[in-house]
């Protein structure tokens, strides 16, 4: 447990020293530390973390987003893009988070720093419509080309399509919202 606290202190010190204003706030929930950072500084922060041998954080575990539409924390920004970073040497996991509203939904890409971020960002783009600036190939990855909208947004309804059998095969397809 001591190593975890030490690593946390080190990380906090590093971020505050180098990007004092870039870190908006810090959150700890169930022993999990998240740093909310400014969107425009994200790529610089990640590059600095990667280049620092003392922190030893080289592994980008995951990128995802959460749509907080209608929740009390929406005032900070509707979308929360969450970067899950891991230190293989210290066995320590922490999160960088970026909040953004729909009109300013552009975040610098990490795919030039970690090649694996390419597909993760494409998935977030496909399902949430977050634009990653500087991404080499920002196209749909999971949903079909003809599908419009971003399915994992809260205002995208779940629909039910009536299956077609012999008795209704001539009817137009019916979609219930």
């Amino acid at each position, binding site marked *: 447990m001591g190593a975890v606290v030490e690593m946390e202190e080190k990380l906090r010190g590093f971020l505050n020293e180098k990007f004092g204003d870039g870190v908006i706030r810090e959150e700890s929930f169930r022993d999990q530390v998240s740093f909310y950072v400014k969107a425009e500084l994200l790529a610089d922060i990640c590059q600095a973390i990667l280049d620092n041998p003392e922190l030893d954080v080289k592994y980008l575990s995951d990128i995802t987003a959460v749509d907080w539409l209608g929740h009390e924390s929406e005032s900070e920004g509707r979308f929360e893009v969450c970067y899950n970073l891991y230190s293989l040497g210290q066995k320590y996991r922490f999160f960088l988070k970026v909040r953004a509203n729909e009109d300013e939904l552009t975040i610098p890409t990490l795919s030039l720093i970690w090649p694996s971020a390419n597909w993760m960002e494409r998935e977030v783009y496909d399902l949430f419509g977050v634009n990653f600036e500087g991404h080499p190939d920002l196209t749909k990855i999971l949903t079909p080309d003809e599908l419009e909208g971003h*399915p994992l947004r809260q205002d995208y309804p779940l629909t039910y399509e009536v299956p077609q059998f012999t008795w209704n095969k001539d009817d137009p397809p019916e979609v219930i919202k």
Partner: protein
Amino acid sequence: MTEQKTLSLNMGPQHPSTHGVLRLVLELDGETVVSTKPVIGYLHTGIEKTMESKLYYKALPCTDRMDYLSPMNNNLAYCLAVEKLMDIEVPEKVKWVRVILSELSRIKSHLFWLGTHAIDLGAMSMLLYAIRERESIVDVYEAVAGQRMMTSYVRIGGLAYDLPSDFEEKVRTAVKNVTNGLSDYEKLLTDNEIFINRTKNVAVISGEDAIAWSLSGPMLRGSGIKHDLRKANPYSGYENFDFDVPIGENGDAYDRYKVRLEEIRQSLKIINQALDGMPEGPYRAHVPGVVLPPKEDVLYKMESMIFHFKIITDGFEAPSGSVYHAIESPKGELGFYISGDGTNTPRRVRVRPPSFINLACIPALTEGGLFADVVCAIGTIDIVLGEVDR
């Protein structure tokens, strides 16, 4: 002089060696692959969105259907994440049973991988042998959950039912069968010259690149990075067991084969330890209002029946906050990122799918190699398209 041109070749989505519906658009110069462009999403079923519309309990069966070769691991990862969100501590016995089942799942998944990977490379009989041993593991599933594939046996706060009386016997039989089978596989493949020629120095990735591509599981360990979440951040009581983490040296398909085979052996070791020292106790945590009361109580105790009814119809309210819990699944780091928002359905359920993230590196594995080795590269990643596309 005639003009030199490359050939575009479409491989898949319906192709027996793409393990499902993976499509690759290959650019070939003679027999050499110039570029590989994977196209995925043919099996996208919106599992994450479906889970977000359900109560925490009712989202559980969706997890079986992602990586259908190791359902117990998916159940476990989801339940551990929800338990972290709700701050539930499960009884010791539950932890040990979960360890046994998730290790059996690992063996089952690796056996199926071994069979299909070998069949891709021309060793037709391997699949039959691997399936033969896998059968006895599926029998254990059937005994505990009543289901052979989509088990949903690990539940939030415990297990679906108590263990059947013949559990230990069935697991011991499975362990014995797999132990005997392992020596057969080694005889058939490890020193097989054709297999070695098809896998040595094929689909090579260095340790540094493996980290940059965020690979996990045997893909990472095959490249010589000793990282296993069971050791690094032990969950579900893995710190109580003695086992090794096998690693490879060259990061090629042959090393990953050896790593997976050794992992089966280590899993057997863990299962034996867990069976020998299994503690007694309840099969579900006692957290009224959140964890379902045991079925026996529901029939005879008024309060248990009320809670049962309430949890099934209304669920429980999770606090506002996000948790991430990752486990070492057979494919790699399988994590669930769950955001609660004070209501009884999750705001966001994100699966960190190891197959999806491992598959992203396929251009790096295949470009510059021979066309025939593409099949080996797909097999060695060990993908399940149900998990890639979700």
